[in-house]
């Protein structure tokens, strides 16, 4: 195995350095194929630091595919080929020297269905910091677990039962546990793929509230089918259709006065 270099260690390009303010993540001319079938076409998109970007669009439009490009989750899919330029803090994440494990620490992910490990609540959160060597002793682990669970708005509900299995929690709590697990490794960016689609309205509201708080410390990119949710939680919204980025703009503008007919048709329920 080649010597792994952290993404942080790669030199910034001059073009990226000249941009102000530099986006946290940037994608340029991203094309993606699943075997012969092209799934993304020339996608250009910037994600600003400490902002929430929502990706919306009908099923199969490429929004989740694009999201998974941002931490190279597509690498695990056979026959998947990515072209183009995706950068985190100006550094190419597809550079051969990038350690994908490190990249995924920096760019964490929360999935549609809560997927806690079959371990205790404590271990679910401590697992990431342990494999990345982020804590030296029990006290430090305890602190990370507490801070992360607090950050995910779950601490008050689980503080007295940290040794119980993670999957003994309710769906909404499990999803917040997954968010705690994601933030425990101190990522820069959190990717969320339909994080609320399996949750009831109250659990959804808690996650939405949480997203707004998490924005203070992290940069968030969220895929959602719930357009009201996209409108509520994000500052920028990207509308995808058939693998193309149709419109990208301020969320307020996209939902009150979209520029593209196709965006309007989709968000007002005229698509088909």
């Amino acid at each position: 195995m080649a010597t792994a270099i952290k993404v942080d260690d790669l030199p910034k390009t001059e073009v990226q350095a000249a941009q102000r303010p530099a986006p946290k993540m940037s994608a340029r001319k991203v094309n993606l194929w699943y075997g012969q079938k092209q799934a993304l076409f020339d996608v250009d998109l910037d994600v600003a630091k400490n902002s929430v970007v929502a990706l919306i669009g009908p099923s199969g439009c490429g929004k989740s595919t694009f999201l998974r490009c941002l931490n190279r989750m597509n690498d695990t899919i056979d026959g998947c080929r990515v072209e183009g330029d995706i950068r985190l803090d100006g550094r190419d994440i597809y550079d051969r020297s990038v350690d994908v494990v490190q990249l995924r620490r920096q760019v964490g992910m929360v999935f549609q269905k809560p997927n806690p490990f079959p371990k205790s609540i404590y271990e679910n959160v401590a697992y990431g910091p342990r494999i990345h060597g982020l804590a030296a002793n029990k006290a430090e682990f305890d602190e990370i677990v507490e801070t992360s669970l607090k950050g995910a708005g779950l601490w008050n509900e689980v503080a007295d039962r940290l040794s119980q299995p993670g999957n003994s929690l309710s769906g909404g709590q499990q999803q917040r546990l997954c968010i705690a697990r994601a933030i425990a490794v101190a990522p820069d960016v959190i990717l969320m793929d339909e994080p609320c689609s399996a949750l009831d309205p109250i659990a959804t509201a808690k996650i939405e509230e949480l997203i707004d708080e998490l924005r203070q410390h992290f940069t968030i990119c969220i895929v959602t089918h719930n357009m009201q949710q996209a409108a509520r939680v994000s500052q920028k919204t990207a509308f995808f259709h058939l693998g193309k980025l149709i419109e990208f703009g301020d969320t307020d503008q996209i939902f009150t006065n979209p520029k593209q007919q196709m965006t309007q048709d989709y968000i007002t329920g005229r698509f088909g």
Partner: protein
Amino acid sequence: MSMSESGPIKKHLVRAYDDDIEQITRLITEMGAIVEQQVAFATQALAEGDEHAARTVIDRDPQVDALEERLDQTAIRVLAIRQPMAIDLRIIAMALKISNDLERMGDYAVNIAKRVIRLQSQTRIRPIPTMVMMSEMCQEMVKDILDAYIARDPDKAMAVWKRDQEVDNAHNSVFRELLTYMLEDPRKITPCIDLIFIAKNLERIGDHATNIAEKIHYMIHGHEINRSRDDEQ
């Protein structure tokens, strides 16, 4: 350039949603048709001293209020169940505001009618031609702004918006004329004051027509009208 200018609006996937929006548009149209008639009757009452026309205006006012109430209820329901976005949201939000303008116009027509009735029992004074002309201008504006609303035509709306200046000019000229009459003959002061109020009401009707023009513009384009009218006073 907003995309909403590029053609007719497509149907929703849920047909009942189209029916909802249509119902809102229809209520505004219906309300507007009555208000237009109210202004027309008020004009007739003023021009011909027609007390019957004046009483008709007063009697019909509750119809306007009832329609406004129905529109409010419908719009609130649609907002709650459809959570409209973009053009739909703008249509519904602007309908709420336009109905408010129409309701005020209706009230001004009633005020005019009441003053006309009072004028009949006082020293007879010939209605000033400028005032009748002003009243007809307002009536035309109301009619044209409703046509612009039904056609969703921001250009037509803008044309009405620009005409408000003529009403304002007529208002000023009516005011000066009535002032002269009052100076000539103090017995004319009371009826002239009534006429001044009528002129003011007409001028306000014109203002509300321009408000509606601005709302049609916003509804279609999604941004405010450029308010700087060079000949603004």
